[in-house]
């Protein structure tokens, strides 16, 4: 290639990239997908989804009116994890449990005080709403904690030393308070960038086919590589823009700490956009139709990024087959990297393999796209 030719080539890429940018800015549906939808999702994940069972509504049935039983009931009331409805008859709260207005019941039976004296403490009964397994586990665990603290204090007050035991001392690194928002908000950034990289890219290019502009462009001296590069550049920039938006919102609105470096964040995001854009380009090259492209992008991009990336549901708990599938979902690596960057820091020992995997999937998608991008119309 002569110098002049390569100059022209670069100029063609810049031209198409600029055009793409102008179109995004002027098309309301692009704005909807690029800016409104991401914010909506970010807010839903930030505010709407919370796995911190910090105020579970439970009922405490006190069938024993003596002081020890009352003191235990008060301990439950004082706990910040529970929102307690006191009752003296089981039946009233049981109905509430069925209706789903309570998630658990603590029953302090009428012979509580006797059993306590006889050191046969398994008198207290915890009933959980098993139809919500996650909440049920928290109810059981928190109730155990409340009881253990109460028992300790009771024994001391009685002047008895509690029997020696092995004490577990859990330390939750990176997120001592276990605030679920701290890992959901960074994780949702991956979903947002998938929407822009895959859904928007697929739609916009499919639209060029539908409107016949692709045909006119293909009849000019532009080459396939130039065409692909000119499509990648603006969406890459847009994806990076949304990353900044999400990161700023995460730190300043949702109060998520950021312990990594901006540099590492940029590198990781760039590595992720490669497969995300590749997937979008591939979809549009194959379908050439906005309707099919949007469905494919939702089912192969958005859904996996939300459900199979490990940001809400643990990948290691999934069946073998799905675990294998997740290896090809770039969002999986991105979610882990983001959570690490926000909460832990520049842990390159984790980031580097993640980057490698994302780039690998990206190269795979882009190669497929190159061959799927037609030089011809039929």
């Amino acid at each position: 290639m002569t110098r002049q030719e390569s100059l022209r080539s670069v100029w063609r890429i810049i031209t198409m990239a600029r055009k793409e940018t102008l179109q995004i800015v002027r098309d309301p549906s692009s704005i909807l997908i690029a800016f409104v939808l991401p914010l909506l999702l970010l807010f839903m994940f930030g505010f709407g989804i919370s796995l911190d069972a910090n105020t579970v509504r439970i009922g405490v049935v006190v069938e024993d009116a003596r002081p020890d039983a009352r003191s235990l009931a008060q301990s439950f009331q004082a706990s910040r994890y529970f929102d307690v409805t006191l009752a003296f008859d089981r039946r009233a709260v049981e109905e509430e449990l069925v209706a789903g207005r309570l998630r658990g019941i603590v029953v302090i039976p009428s012979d509580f005080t006797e059993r306590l004296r006889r050191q046969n403490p398994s008198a207290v009964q915890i009933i959980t709403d098993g139809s919500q397994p996650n909440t049920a586990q928290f109810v059981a665990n928190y109730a155990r904690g409340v009881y253990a603290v109460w028992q300790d204090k009771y024994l001391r007050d009685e002047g008895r030393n509690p029997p020696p035991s092995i004490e577990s001392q859990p330390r939750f690194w990176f997120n001592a308070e276990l605030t679920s928002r701290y890992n959901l908000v960074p994780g949702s950034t991956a979903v947002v960038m998938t929407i822009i990289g895959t859904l928007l890219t697929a739609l916009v290019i499919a639209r060029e086919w539908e409107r016949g502009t692709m045909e006119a462009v293909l009849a000019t001296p532009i080459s396939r590589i130039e065409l692909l590069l000119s499509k990648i550049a603006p969406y890459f920039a847009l994806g990076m823009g949304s990353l900044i938006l999400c990161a700023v919102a995460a730190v300043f609105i949702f109060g998520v700490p950021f312990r990594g470096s901006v540099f590492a964040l940029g590198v990781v995001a760039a590595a992720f956009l490669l497969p995300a854009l590749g997937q979008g380009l591939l979809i549009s090259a194959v379908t050439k139709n906005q309707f099919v492209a949007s469905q494919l992008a939702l089912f192969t991009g958005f859904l996996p990024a939300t459900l199979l990336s490990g940001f809400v549901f643990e990948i290691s708990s999934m069946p073998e087959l799905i675990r294998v599938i997740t290896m090809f979902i770039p969002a999986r690596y991105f979610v882990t990297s983001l959570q690490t960057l926000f909460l832990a820091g520049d842990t390159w020992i984790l980031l580097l393999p993640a980057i490698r995997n994302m780039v690998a999937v990206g190269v795979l998608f882009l190669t497929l796209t190159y061959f799927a991008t037609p030089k011809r119309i039929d």
Partner: protein
Amino acid sequence: MWRRIYSLIIKELLAIWRDPKGRMTLIIPPILQLVIFAFAMTMEVKNADIAVVNLDNGYWGSEIEAQITAAAPFDDVYRLESVGQIRETIDAQRAIAVVHIGQDFSRQIGAGEPANIQIILDGRKSNSAQIVNGYLTNTIARVSTQAYGGPIVEPLRVRNWFNPNLEYNWFTVPGLIATITLLTTIIVTALSVARERELGTFDQLLVSPMRPLEIVVGKAAPGMIFGYIHGSFFIFMAAVIFKIPFSGSLLLLYASMFFYLLAVIGIGLFISAISATQQQAILGAFVFASPAILLSGFMSPVENMPNWMQTLTLINPLRHFLVIAQGIYLKGLPALEVARNTAPLILIAAVTLPAAAWLFRKKST
């Protein structure tokens, strides 16, 4: 009038079914959802990787190790040689938790002194870390009672009603009946008018003797029919494949599903009435469906949301029907409670359906 509606319904069904794209939207998403949702959506912890640093040479240290290895949710238990390896193990997510047993652990127990074990957990996965911590703490507590010769009694008797072993499937699968019908119905109805607009046949319908109300009924029926078909398919799968117990009234479930579908159809037709193309309709359906699913109580409990958002979820049909579906399946939800949760659905339908009918004419240009 009924003949006109009947013709429209037959036509709608044929138009969806004879179109390969239409068939695809009806068959593929439910299967994908069955696979992804039912198997992948779990908050349980299985196959978690754990690491142990055991600096104790005595009996109790290895007993702890053995008990952890035997515990159900743990896949691999790595042995680390030194405390220095802990950071790397957690950082690189080789293990979600590291159990650190100190040097004179067994000696302390032998001497009847209290001993302690440090558990370092990866807070980046807050939910799993918490559950793993629960398992580890219980295991350690068991060893503790053995070690100090106390009676082996749980201080509390825990009973999980409705789902004794806390099977996560029992939660997801009934919920799926609600979400799957939402997605099917919203897509079928959202596309119905938009498709005709794009093809130019909608004007033809409007100049025919059909009244807007008749069009609404005709357009609503396919969503209702496919919603029931998909719903029934999942009810069947729930019984046969997932073996979810069914403790309530099937009749009540089907009856309340009618109003649920009606509410969703109202929203779908509303989306359809305001979209000019099928692509807009799909995006509209998506913009409605994703918050509806995320903020329904399916992904995380409604009561964990801020108050203003809890109020907002009242207009989400899925939120109400989720309570009904899960309630009827596992809790045998009584009729009064079903009715209480059905009322808002009727209200949503009563607003959205007439609004859609009005928009059909309004938006025709």
